[in-house]
């Protein structure tokens, strides 16, 4: 299968750079798979799992939180606010984050902040389900 160039970077470091066959990206308006010669798209990411297919039997899954995906002629670039390989992912930390989000929601005063906190909580819960699966 044809490959294209994919890069995953977080502010702290470059997590992945290389040729891949397909990448599943958790866009804010739904998941989508990017393959070679995908039409140029730019989207905001939500918290979720990025699935990288390097070769038929070589897959890796990473958890990302917030950021952007940029599909251009040169390939796909993911700018993640935070990215962790799933193997290193800590369910205790996720539980902590969910708790924080719940507190944020309880503390939110304005409508806007409340909506933001609720969205975040939804995303985290979704993620918890994804990790458990």
């Amino acid at each position, binding site marked *: 299968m044809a490959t294209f160039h994919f890069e995953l970077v977080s*502010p702290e*470091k470059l997590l992945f750079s290389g040729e891949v066959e397909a990448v599943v990206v958790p866009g804010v308006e739904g998941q989508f798979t990017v393959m070679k010669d995908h039409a140029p798209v*730019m989207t905001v990411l939500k918290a979720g799992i990025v699935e990288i297919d390097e070769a038929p039997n070589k897959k890796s899954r990473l958890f990302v939180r917030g950021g952007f995906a940029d599909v*251009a002629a040169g390939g796909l670039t993911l700018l993640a606010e935070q990215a962790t390989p799933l193997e290193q992912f800590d369910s205790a930390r996720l539980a902590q984050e969910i708790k924080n989000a719940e507190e944020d929601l309880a503390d939110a005063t304005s409508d806007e902040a409340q909506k933001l906190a609720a969205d975040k909580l939804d995303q985290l819960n979704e993620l918890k389900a994804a990790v458990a699966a």
Partner: protein
Amino acid sequence: MPSLKDLRNRIASVKATQKITKAMQMVAAAKLRRAQQAAEAARPYAERMDTVLANLASGVSGDGPALLTGNGKSEVHLLVVATAERGLCGGFNSSIVRLARERILALQSEGKTVKILCIGKKGYDQLRRQFEKQIVDLIDLRALRQIGFENADPIGKKIIAMFDRGEFDVATLFYSKFRSVILQIPTAQQLIPAEVPAGGEASTAAYEYEPGQDEILATLLPRNISVQIFRGLLENAASEQGARMSAMDNATRNAGEMIKKQTTIYNRSRQAMITKELIEIISGAEAL
């Protein structure tokens, strides 16, 4: 003429100082390696961010968001001066402050209002003498061993909140770029309105945006500011350690020279004293 005891004490104290500077140099060298790695690891993200921003901005026609194009005024300038928390690193802090001070004076002579936000205590101490009234805040990062993105993000948010409240029109970040151990370049970088790197792939390809172009810009621009600050802080951390390393290396060498000089004086006066005693004994014996 100092006595032999004085000389011995002086040599001992210089030796003790030399040990300290030597230790500081080695600590700085170890920290430098880590800081340099962190700065290098952060580079790809910032570079990709620049490209993405350039791509997006080239598609913006007319008036975009205020963070990108400014609010049309340039009356009140906010200078974000990032320096170290500690001294003993040569001219590192002073050179950043000097650059900021020149800018402040230039802006003031043009009749603009200047506000200063200090990151790091050393810059605050130096600027306070001259511009006490202009300093709006001091951000202290002393407790941190390693700067993470989560430390830079609140600073970015704070600056944006100030901008939204209309407290300033233009923001500039002052920091020191790390070139090598002996060369750090004090740099001023404009944060708001965003400086868009030239050479974005002019929108030949029809981009699709999810959700919309404006929404993406609205999330990307604040993020970009945090990233710029983060990059500045990392470069600063590496520069600081580099500057300290070379300053302490010099200090160690100077201490070595001083010890050598003092030892020569000590030996000379010791010999002179022995000779004097000998002469006294011999002339005493001859007199008998």
